[in-house]
């Protein structure tokens, strides 16, 4: 409970940001942060809590985004229909990836998730007739939400999208937090600590691992649908192994198994290249170096440092 209050305050503060007439640029940065918070929180469920390494978060992000784009193109569905469908389709692929996880662990599992991520990426870039290949696909704006013919709200400007993104992130964090602190969260941690004993006391390890993969993929899918409508298009480069690796770094550096640690990691890693923007050409070099430095000096992540200081 103690950790909820600062989170609620932060959300409230974020909701008030647009009222201070900030630049479009700041809103843009925050929207990107929200997207990565969702990705990182999702990954924390499967990697931090359940201990199953996954380098495929970028792929699920892409699956959500492309599902929205393709459903729009082929069936004319709008945001409010493609959002749940994108989540479901990403979740289904998460189930697919969860199956090898039942028999593999450690680096074998990591490599399998990397292979999965790469296959999805290759399909996105090469299957031009279906996915638009390197050029991707266009996606319209979110538009209006109408109920029984009455227009509830319209989302066209960045400011309006900001609230939508904030709302989706808040829901995603709530879902992740509730899962992590409930029965299945405890079972995940037990599986991570000692899978053999967890099985021996009656926990259904198979089902729990699959749920972890599905949940993390579904959350990534939600973020994917959002980004598709935000950028008004999808293209493969946003969903590559680099994206996955960055999300893994967010979880590790933020502190796995805490939900809010990875969220903080998301903030750091998203803002870092922007903060470094002044250094232009050196930006990504410094980014890479910082990643290395953080892993060497903070192997337990920021949350781990805090935990050590407290005890």
């Amino acid at each position, binding site marked *: 409970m103690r950790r909820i209050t600062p989170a609620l305050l932060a959300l409230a503060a974020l909701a008030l940001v647009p009222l201070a007439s900030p630049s479009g640029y700041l809103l843009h940065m925050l929207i990107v942060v929200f997207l990565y918070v969702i990705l990182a929180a999702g990954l924390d469920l499967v990697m931090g809590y359940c201990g199953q390494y996954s380098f495929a978060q970028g792929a699920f992000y892409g699956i959500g985004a492309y599902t929205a784009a393709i459903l729009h193109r082929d069936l004319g569905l709008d945001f409010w229909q493609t959002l749940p469908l994108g989540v479901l389709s990403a979740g289904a692929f998460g189930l697919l990836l969860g199956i090898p996880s039942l028999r593999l662990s450690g680096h074998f599992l990591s490599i399998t998730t990397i292979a999965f991520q790469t296959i999805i990426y290759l399909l996105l870039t090469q299957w031009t007739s279906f996915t638009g290949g390197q050029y991707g696909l266009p996606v319209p704006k979110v538009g209006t939400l109408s109920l029984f013919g009455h227009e509830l709200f319209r989302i066209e400007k960045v400011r309006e999208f900001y609230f939508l993104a904030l709302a989706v992130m808040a829901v995603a964090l709530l879902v992740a937090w509730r899962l992590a602190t409930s029965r299945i969260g405890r079972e995940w941690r037990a599986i991570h600590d000692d899978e053999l*004993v967890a*099985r*021996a006391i009656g926990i259904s390890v198979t089902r729990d691992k699959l749920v972890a993969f599905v949940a993390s993929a579904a959350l990534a899918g939600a973020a994917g649908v959002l980004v598709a409508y935000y950028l008004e298009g999808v293209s493969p480069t946003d969903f590559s192994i680099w994206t996955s690796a960055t999300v893994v770094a967010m979880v590790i550096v933020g502190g796995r198994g805490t939900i809010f640690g990875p969220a903080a990691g998301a903030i750091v890693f998203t803002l870092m290249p922007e903060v470094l923007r002044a250094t232009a050409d050196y930006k990504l070099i410094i980014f890479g170096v910082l990643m290395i430095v953080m892993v060497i000096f903070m192997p337990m992540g920021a949350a781990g440092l805090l935990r050590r200081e407290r005890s």
Partner: protein
Amino acid sequence: MALLECVQLSRNFGGLVAVDKVDLAVEAGEIVGLIGPNGSGKSTLVNLITGVVPVTGGRIRFEGHDITALPSWRIARLGIARTFQLLRLFKSLSVLENVTLPLQPRMASGQAASAFGRGRAAEEDRAAVAKGRELLAFFGLVEFAERPPTALSIGQQRLVELVRAIIVGPKLFVLDEPAAGLSPPNVERLIDLVRRMRDEQGITILLVEHVMKVVRELCDRIVVLDYGVKIADGDPQAVTNDPRVVEAYLGGGREQPHARG
């Protein structure tokens, strides 16, 4: 019909025979001790019964049902609980979370319901917490409920393991060297607790142990293994004086079973 029946149970590891056609029966309400020199196959036998290691020969029956090929989690849910030789508590969970975890698979309400705090699930969760605290109090550990297991001494952690095992009300409880590393007062307490588990909660006990004091005071019957083979099965007095048993312990220069344990 015995509660647990092992019929010609065997386990081969490649060429090595760890358990060799062992017949073992445990009647409901008994406390049976399983002893034998190091390497005699006691732990393997226990692993076979609890489904941790696959059986290569023979059968196991529990309450009349054949459980030979069942995975460990199914056996757990049928009512057999066990402890491990090395402490295997979950470090990332608190003591209370550790002991209430086994109740979760048996709850009627679903996981999703629990995640979203729906009525019946929340009730079951609260009941589990209450039962966990009650048992921890029984063992004198309730003050540690919210701490991680690593904050407790080895002896206390062993007791937490016992709580975790009996919270589900198993019918058969297999204890793997519960007295190891316990100080004398804790050994006394352990003996008392195990006896009360049988007397008050009706749990049948299969006890693997080296500490002879525990075996002598608790067990109705003792079974002795040597090199995977059963060499004795009877009341404690008879078994400890059985020349074959003495030979097994003395033969490799090991401790005599009736020495001070």
